[in-house]
């Protein structure tokens, strides 16, 4: 899409705010609508938009596929690991109150924050990985035919 000047300029302007909004949705999910799933999708959209406009090779330089694949697994590990940590503290699986025994609410806040982070990382990485998988194959339709 080298010839679409408007798209390129507007995409450059938009990518930053989109990522910022994703982080807001991620970490403000306790107080307002949103959470890991939505934040992950919005985060991925920033990279997908960048990839659509500037080309797959450019976005792969920013967010290389090996990192995407590792992050997809890392998110699940963060989530499941939180549960294992609460097991090690002697509580039931995924019982966040065990993190701060004298103030269970704080433990819940920490647990929810970490778990949502795991969800967000996995969802963002998976969306980008699926986009890479589709976009990396040679297209049947040329740019003009759309």
């Amino acid at each position, binding site marked *: 899409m080298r010839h679409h000047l408007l798209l390129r300029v507007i995409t450059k302007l938009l990518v930053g705010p989109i990522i910022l909004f994703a982080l807001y*949705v991620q970490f403000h*999910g*306790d*107080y*307002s*609508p*949103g*959470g*890991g*799933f*939505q934040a992950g*999708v*919005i985060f*991925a*959209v920033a990279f*997908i938009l960048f990839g*659509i406009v500037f080309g797959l090779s450019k976005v792969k330089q920013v967010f290389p596929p090996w990192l995407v*694949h590792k992050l*997809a*697994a890392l*998110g*699940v590990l963060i*989530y*499941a690991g939180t*549960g294992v940590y609460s097991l090690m503290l002697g509580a039931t*699986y*995924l019982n*966040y109150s065990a993190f701060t025994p004298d103030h*269970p*609410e704080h433990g*819940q*806040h920490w*647990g*929810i924050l970490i*778990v*949502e982070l*795991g*969800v967000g990382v*996995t*969802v963002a*990485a*998976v*969306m980008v*990985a*699926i*986009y890479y*998988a*589709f*976009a*990396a*194959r040679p*297209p*049947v*339709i040329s740019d003009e*035919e*759309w």
Partner: protein
Amino acid sequence: MELFINLVLFSMLVVTAVAILKMRHLFAVVMLSGVFSLLCALLFVTLDAVDVAFTEAAVGAGISTVLMLGTMALTARNEKMPRDFSFIPLAVVMITGAVLIYGTLDMPDFGSATSPAQLHLATEYLKQSPSDIGVPNVVTAILASYRGYDTLGETVVVFTACVGVLMLIGNLARRRRKDEEGAE
């Protein structure tokens, strides 16, 4: 006013659905399904389900559209015309639809205060979550804490979807084979 908004949204939903059915040009169909998702998101907002609306707008209208466009770039742009009219699919759809509508007859009235959803767990969650968890957004509290196992399962499902896509069209095997050939 709310009735008017609902009527407008639902009629636009039906119009979009009929347009999707009638169209053969898949690019327009993909765009219209994005519109369909956005209309659904608006309906969720009128039901005060902001979290669901948010997800529907981000996933249904955003990511799905991109993925469908990506799929289309790899396949075809126009739907094939059906070869001939066949009776069996129509009958199956009609019977399934009739059974589903029959099933809704048992459901509690819309917005009824005595429906099971309002009586058991929901009230418990609403009452307990300020003291148990202290997170102002109850949806997040239920999703990540009370229903932590479910959300863990959902995350694993998303991850599994990724693994599946990568194994089918991810080119991972080809890359490894190329590496091995290069090593030899």
